[in-house]
């Protein structure tokens, strides 16, 4: 394999100062976790902490890095330049993937000794289950990254847009799907197949492996051959919709309920990805589109971009309501909060010219974290956007859906007002 991206990664990302800082940081965080876990269950607790941290690093830093890097390379025309070289498509994708995620993988690896340190401690999971969990983590990470790259390739062909938080959304999807599988590593359950009972973890890890293979082949195909070809706007929604076929593999495993729940939870991740691509054009073009739409009193130019994610949410909400009414609350919850977040982001994009992403993180972060710090600490009804089902339906409704809906309405009103003001006050571009 010829992977020139790795040489570049060594020059840009894996510099000695960064390695030293990352190594020291990971060791210090692991030490803090070990200190917090002193007690009877310290082995289980510490392993759980370390695995969670590794998952966070890989899925919420590694995957977004891969997707963002890919899009940046596409905009720089580097992919076309690489396609003129003797590199195979697989080498291009693998090289980029390894390069852009190398620092995240290094941080996760630097945490690993603490999981091994926990093995002799009370109620530790044992080496084999730990290795199995790491394998599932790696599979999920590869699947989410490859899907993100393939989806970004489709989106780049559609509108050459910027990715925004799409990589983060894909990381969320991988985190949830891989997390479900990892949990099964310490389970003794089996899946009754025609060939006989198969350990549940093996079955679900194989399903995850299928997703990985499917997404990797899609990434290689898109990057290697079709990247520059024009594409229907619906190719990306279609591509991502097939992703959920992976969840269908959960049904024979007797995990229909979990499959539905996972579907409900992962939909916002994918929808956010779609929405990010839909809004992916540069801020100036986006503003111009909005101004023209406001002037013409027609939202049609914006419909195709917005319709795909929202139709997906609406379809899912309807399907869930019809088939699994007890989970409809989750679908409603994620749709409401997604709407609020998109309107808040939209308002910020109209109002600010710089650092929109930073402002978005601060505002949305506050909207999520403040209730956790206030409501959750003073009551037992759970915080806003608590995805797990509430113990009390009424409390869950009052704590989540109603305030969320009000916030979404307020954000939509603010967005609409700002767009109308923009249409009146600013001179339209020719």
């Amino acid at each position: 394999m010829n992977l020139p991206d790795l040489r570049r990664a060594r020059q840009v990302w894996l510099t000695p100062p960064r390695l030293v800082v990352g190594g020291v940081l990971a060791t210090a965080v692991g030490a803090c976790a070990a200190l917090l876990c002193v007690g009877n269950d310290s082995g289980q607790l510490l392993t759980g902490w370390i695995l969670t941290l590794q998952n966070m690093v890989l899925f919420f830093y590694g995957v977004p890095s891969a997707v963002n890097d890919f899009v940046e390379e596409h905009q720089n025309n580097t992919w076309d330049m690489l396609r003129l070289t003797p590199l195979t498509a697989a080498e291009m994708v693998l090289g980029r993937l390894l390069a852009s995620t190398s620092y995240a993988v290094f941080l996760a690896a630097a945490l690993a000794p603490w999981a091994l340190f926990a093995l002799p401690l009370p109620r530790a999971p044992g080496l084999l289950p730990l290795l199995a969990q790491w394998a599932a983590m790696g599979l999920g990470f590869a699947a989410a990254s490859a899907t993100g790259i393939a989806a970004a390739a489709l989106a780049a062909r559609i509108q050459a847009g910027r990715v925004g938080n799409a990589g983060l959304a894909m990381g969320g999807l991988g985190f949830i799907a891989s997390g479900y599988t990892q949990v099964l590593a310490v389970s003794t359950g089996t899946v009754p197949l025609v060939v006989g009972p198969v350990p549940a973890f093996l079955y679900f890890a194989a399903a995850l492996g299928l997703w990985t293979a499917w997404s990797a082949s899609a990434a290689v195909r898109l990057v290697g051959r079709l990247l520059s070809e024009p594409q229907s706007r619906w190719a990306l929604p279609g591509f991502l919709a097939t992703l959920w076929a992976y969840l269908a593999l959960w049904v024979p495993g007797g995990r229909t309920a979990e499959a539905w729940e996972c579907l409900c939870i992962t939909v916002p991740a994918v929808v956010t990805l779609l929405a990010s691509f839909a809004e992916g054009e540069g801020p100036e073009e986006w503003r111009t589109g909005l101004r023209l739409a406001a002037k013409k009193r027609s939202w049609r130019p914006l419909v195709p971009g917005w319709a795909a994610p929202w139709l997906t949410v609406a379809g899912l909400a309807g399907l869930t309501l019809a088939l699994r009414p007890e989970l409809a609350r989750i679908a409603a919850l994620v749709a409401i909060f997604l709407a609020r977040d998109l309107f808040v982001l939209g308002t910020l994009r109209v109002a600010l010219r710089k650092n929109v992403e930073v402002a978005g993180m601060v505002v949305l972060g506050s909207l999520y974290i403040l209730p956790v710090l206030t409501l959750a600490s003073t009551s037992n009804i759970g915080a806003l956007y608590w995805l797990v089902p509430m113990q009390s339906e009424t409390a869950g409704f009052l704590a989540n859906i109603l305030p969320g809906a009000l916030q979404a309405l307020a954000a939509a009103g603010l967005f609409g007002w700002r767009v109308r003001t923009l249409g009146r006050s600013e001179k339209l571009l020719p």
Partner: protein
Amino acid sequence: MTPPVRNGSVPDVIVTARDLRKEYGDVAAVDGVDLDLERGSVTALVGPNGAGKSTLMRLLCGLLDADEGRVLVDGVDAAAEPRKVRSLYGFLPDVYGFREEMTPREVLGYFADAYRIPAHLGDARASELLTFVRLDGVADKPVGRLSRGMRQRLGIARALIHDPPIVFLDEPAAGLDPDNRRELQALFKSISAAGKTLLVSSHILTELEEYCTHAVLLRAGRVGAADRLARLVAGPLAAQTMRLRAVRGLEKAEALLSRRPGVSGLEASGPDLRFRLACTDEEAAALLAELLAAGVQVAAFGAETRSFEDAYRSWSAEEAG
């Protein structure tokens, strides 16, 4: 473009395209293009915006798949062996972005790696090219701190890293000041002198005329005209403004020409007559014989000298008309 065969010699063609088509939705970006690029030639690819120049370049070097048609590069079918064909090209696209934090030396090292050039040879080649494009003074500065002209020259060095026989340059002079454009011209002449085949798309025709040997005029995805540049500039007499200088018998000549089919825009200018002539070379020769037979003492008879830009404008006006 099929260059004319001169003195029985067969042109050595390195790139051949036949009936090349590429559609984007309902729009034919490239519509039945036949093209031959002669080995060692420097061909100007010109046409209005949206004529299909970039698409044609990308089709020829295999970055786009053609809907129909065939491309042969040095005898190799691009559809059958795309990777082999692609590696015969060096390409400077219109967007030539680099990672801003990388240095020119690192950029070239990276692409040398991609072309599987052993590290020591790659480093030597990178140094050689950095000197060639006069970037040796900034070889270790981040690309983000280089001027547009320097980045363009780095793009050219990148295109040459694997010593390809064919180099495509898409709008290489766009956005550059005259000094930088002159430097680029000198570079292109050096690359051409090294025996490479160049295809250059540009709107700056005066500069193309300085170093191009052939030209292809593209409009709406079709080749409108293609030939050696000198012949295109000289043009068929049909499209030319002629000048006749007579020592005696100018009135006779004027009367004869005014009656002659194919002559238009006749005007006297001192001892000269200027007119547009729409006829073949043979008919023009017959006209000269007729003038002489009528007793006109011809001192000079020929097409007015024109530039590539004049020729392009004339062609463009004819196409539009």
